[in-house]
């Protein structure tokens, strides 16, 4: 039957062809059924391709029949699946039957039929591609993965939505050819783990029902997998700087960008304003900076500045930076630096430096005030010499070394706040070699050398002093004191007196030294004799250990060279003090300062109160043992010394003043034990104390005609006393208040002038004001005077006195001293 249907159609077509052939028009060409397809097994569609239309409008009709049925049906819906298609809805679709489908094209002339298509619905199932594919990267626990989501293919019939699709996903890096296909299952999302960071991927999905074929691949989706994949880290604001106090710029340092392109935004707010502004100019000052022009720059206002770094993963904000532009001014270096060599009147070259403030800085208006500092060094030098020059813009430099090349640099800074500019570029200047200057240098060297030699010579002289001098200049024996003319003494001319005393020789002679030794021996013997005659002999004698001689002050005094050294060294202590002393002594003994003053004062006191109870308390008790510390003495008498030397007092050799017992003992004995030659300070100090004490002793000795061992240092006195029982008093002319005053002799070192003779047995001597004195021999009787002065001022040696037996630091220049002056101190 089917065969018959087909053959009858062919007959009709044959007829149609023959008729059209005559007119140039013909029946339509044979259409072709392209495909039939079911999206979801419940409906299906078929599409055909028209043949030629034969020049006439052609209609297409789809006929179908089902297997085992004779009936032929026409397409139920030509519209739903588009042109040249036929849609079979649910009602017309039977999955259990095979459909036989033909398409017939018909025009005026005739018609033509396609080949029949046999369709089994279940075998033509192919869904549409999934839709709405979307991709994103996600990071969890610092692992990045790719997240894909999509929707099932849409269906025309919304009611039928219960289909289960299987999905497949494929992806590849954009630039590669091969796809990686992943079976997803029935879910509509998928997590792709381990995508390569920084690579751009292409992703597609397709789907399939449980039967049938895979759908087409969905449209492509692209995604960039981030590097590392994190928000940027906190940027840091490095600094803000205003070069001219009118504008300013802030710079920041970006931190890690988290693997993404990162944008930086600078935000700021001003004091007292809520509003937050963004940087007005990111460009002018270069990358990672923000430039605030004049309009945006206010002074005396705090800017709160932050920088925000942002990338696709997030953002991070720097710590706030607070800026008051007043304090961030850092100018540029000065410019127009010129170096010019000029010659001064004395033809010494000097350097004139001039410069200008940096061009940006407006110093003329007074808005900005700059201060400058320059530095220079010889080219090969290591250390810069830095000179602050204030606001001036020029500077003169003197005393540059000739023949050297100097490097000069300048920088500047605002007057109050802000910071120094960079140093200006190095400038060089060659200081010309000046022959005159060279000569000068030679002369200076010669001078220095010769003075060095002189120094050395004088040094040896000090050490070897007496002998050398004695060798060069033999001594002249002096006359005895008996020969002294009292009238001469009264007139007080020292030269005459001196000549009368007869020690013309300067320097002292070997004879003198011999005499000294003799004298010492004598003194010792006298000592022995005298001691028992003391009122308090037991104590006093105890306090004179003989064995101390070797190392004691006495020992020192016995050796003039040693002594001089000691004195010199001690003199070298506080030179300032000394000069004061000198002046005071010379000019106004009443107003003496420092040590001298102290000594004098205490002496005066001592003299005034003359061993009264109150006074005696200020002195060390006679009962004190030998090793008792001299601090006691300092307490009352020589406060200045105490202050200066208190720290070393402990080591000071004991000074014993054997004076106490109320009024009884008038013959204190001072024992100074120096364990150590190096303790010059202590020695010095003790000596001064001794002086004081000594004075007192002398005072005492006025009254009782005892032979005081103390007085023996005054050999001439001693001698005189042996005959006439006098004593020697020191008296200052200026001192009106005190009848007697023992003063430490000052610069002139000798009380050579005889002021007056009192009571026939008191010889009053006055210091001679002349500094450079001829040697004085005051010991005509014993012929042992060693009161020698060295006139060499530059030696500036210590001088040890003959007078009340102290070794006083003497600022002016004798390197000789009278050993006898020390004797009492060490007894």
């Amino acid at each position: 039957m089917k065969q018959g249907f087909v053959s009858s159609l062919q007959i009709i077509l044959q007829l149609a062809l023959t008729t059209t052939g005559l007119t140039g028009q013909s029946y339509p060409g044979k259409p072709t059924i392209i495909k039939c397809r079911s999206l979801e097994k419940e409906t299906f569609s078929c599409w055909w391709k028209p043949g030629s239309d034969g020049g006439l409008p052609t209609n297409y009709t789809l006929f179908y029949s089902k297997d085992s049925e004779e009936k032929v049906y026409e397409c139920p819906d030509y519209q739903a699946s588009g042109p040249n298609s036929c849609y079979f809805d649910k009602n017309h679709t039977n999955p259990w039957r095979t459909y036989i489908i033909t398409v017939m094209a018909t025009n005026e002339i005739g018609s033509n039929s396609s080949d029949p298509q046999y369709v089994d619905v279940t075998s033509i199932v192919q869904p549409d591609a999934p839709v709405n594919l979307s991709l994103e990267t996600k990071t969890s626990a610092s692992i990045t993965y790719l997240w894909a989501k999509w929707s099932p293919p849409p269906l025309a019939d919304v009611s039928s939505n219960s289909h289960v699709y299987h999905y497949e996903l494929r992806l590849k890096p954009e630039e590669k050819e091969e796809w990686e296909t992943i079976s997803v299952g029935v879910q509509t999302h998928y997590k792709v783990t381990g995508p390569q960071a920084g690579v751009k991927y292409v992703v597609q999905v397709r789907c399939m029902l449980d039967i049938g074929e895979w759908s087409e691949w969905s449209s492509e989706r692209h995604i960039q997998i981030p590097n590392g994949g994190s928000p940027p880290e906190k940027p840091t604001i490095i600094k803000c700087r205003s070069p001219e106090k009118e504008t300013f710029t802030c710079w920041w340092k970006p931190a890690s960008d988290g693997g993404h392109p990162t944008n930086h935004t600078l935000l700021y707010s001003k004091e007292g304003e809520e509003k937050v502004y963004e940087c007005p100019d990111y460009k002018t000052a270069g990358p990672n900076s923000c430039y605030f022009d004049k309009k945006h720059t206010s002074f005396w206002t705090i800017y709160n500045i932050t920088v925000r770094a942002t990338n696709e993963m997030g953002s991070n904000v720097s710590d706030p930076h607070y800026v008051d532009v007043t304090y961030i001014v850092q100018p540029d270096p000065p410019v127009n630096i010129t170096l010019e060599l000029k010659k001064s009147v004395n033809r010494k070259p000097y350097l004139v430096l001039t410069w200008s403030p940096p061009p940006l800085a407006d110093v003329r208006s007074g808005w900005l005030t700059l201060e400058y500092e320059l530095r220079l060094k010889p080219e090969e030098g290591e250390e810069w010499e830095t000179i602050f020059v204030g606001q001036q813009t020029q500077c003169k430099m003197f005393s540059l070394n000739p023949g050297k090349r100097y490097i000069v640099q300048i920088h500047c800074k605002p007057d109050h706040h802000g910071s120094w500019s960079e140093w200006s570029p190095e400038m060089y200047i060659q200081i010309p070699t000046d022959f005159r200057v060279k000569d000068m240098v030679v002369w200076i060297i010669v001078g220095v050398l010769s003075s060095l030699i002189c120094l050395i010579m004088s040094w040896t002289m000090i050490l070897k002093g007496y002998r050398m001098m004695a060798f060069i200049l033999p001594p002249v024996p002096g006359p005895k004191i008996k020969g002294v003319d009292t009238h001469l003494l009264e007139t007080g001319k020292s030269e005459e007196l001196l000549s009368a005393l007869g020690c013309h020789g300067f320097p002292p002679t070997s004879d003198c030294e011999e005499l000294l030794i003799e004298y010492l021996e004598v003194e010792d013997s006298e000592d022995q004799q005298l001691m028992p005659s003391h009122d308090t002999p037991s104590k006093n004698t105890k306090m004179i250990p003989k064995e101390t001689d070797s190392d004691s002050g006495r020992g020192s005094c016995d050796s003039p060279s040693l002594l001089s050294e000691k004195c010199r060294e001690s003199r070298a202590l506080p030179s300032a003090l000394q000069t004061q002393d000198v002046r005071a002594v010379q000019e106004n003994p009443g107003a003496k300062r420092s040590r001298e003053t102290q000594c004098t004062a205490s002496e005066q006191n001592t003299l005034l109160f003359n061993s009264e109870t109150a006074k005696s308390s200020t002195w060390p008790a006679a009962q004190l043992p030998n090793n008792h510390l001299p601090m006691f003495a300092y307490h009352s008498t020589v406060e200045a010394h105490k202050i200066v030397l208190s720290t070393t007092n402990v080591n000071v050799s004991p000074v014993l003043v054997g004076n106490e017992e109320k009024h009884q003992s008038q013959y204190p004995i001072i024992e100074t034990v120096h364990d150590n030659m190096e303790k010059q300070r202590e020695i010095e100090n003790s000596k001064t104390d001794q002086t004081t004490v000594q004075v007192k002793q002398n005072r005492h000795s006025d009254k009782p005609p005892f032979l005081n061992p103390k007085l023996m240092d005054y050999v001439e006195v001693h001698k005189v006393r042996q005959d006439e029982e006098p004593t020697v008093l020191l008296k200052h002319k200026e001192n009106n208040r005190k009848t007697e005053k023992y003063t430490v002799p000052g610069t002139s070192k000798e009380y050579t002038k005889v002021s007056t003779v009192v009571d026939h047995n008191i010889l009053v001597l006055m210091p001679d004001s002349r500094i450079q004195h001829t040697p004085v021999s005051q010991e005509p009787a014993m012929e042992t005077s060693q009161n020698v002065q060295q006139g060499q001022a530059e030696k500036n040696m210590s001088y040890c006195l003959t007078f009340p037996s102290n070794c006083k630091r003497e600022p002016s220049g004798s390197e000789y001293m009278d050993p006898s002056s020390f004797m009492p101190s060490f007894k």
Partner: protein
Amino acid sequence: GLLLVALLVSNMLLTKEGVTSLPICPNGSINCQVSLEELFDRAVKLSHYIHSLSSEMFNEFDERYAQGRGFIAKAVNGCHTSSLTTPEDKEQAQQIHHEDLLNLVLGVLRSWNDPLIHLASEVQRIKEAPETILWKAVEIEEQNKRLLEGMERIVGRLHFGDIGNDISSQWEGLPSLQLADEDSRLFAFYNLLHCLRRDSHKIDNYLKLLKCRLIHDNNC
């Protein structure tokens, strides 16, 4: 410390006495007075000195009491003188008429009279306040008065019709300097010193500007 005092003394000598250049008076002239230039010189030296002091004082305080307390972030609330509109940059300062600028300087100086007196007394109560801070507080108070006198002198010399008409800004910060809570109290001091440093610098800057403008015709 000693050096500072020595510097100060020399500075004071210079500023107070103006020993360096006494004006040369024409014989018998009744109008023998210090020249305007000299007045400005002294004023500028004094303001420079005051600002140096206040700056040092602030730094000392900051170092000693404000470390790690984040005071600077809180200090952006302004100063009691912020009601006085003062030039904030060079252009503003150059545009303002010198009379107005002088009046502003006077106003700021006056506004500090009161707080400085209290500062000098209250600062004594800060725990373990170093001598340097105490001393500076007193010194600044005195020098501020002195500068105010000098500025009134200058303003008088310039023959303004209307002298000053008492612009000033009231300070009401005394209670905050006496707060029981140490942190708040220290912050009050911090803020006051911060403002003092700022205002003294303003004054110094304005005076230097005025000096260049009025005496040296903008050609310092």
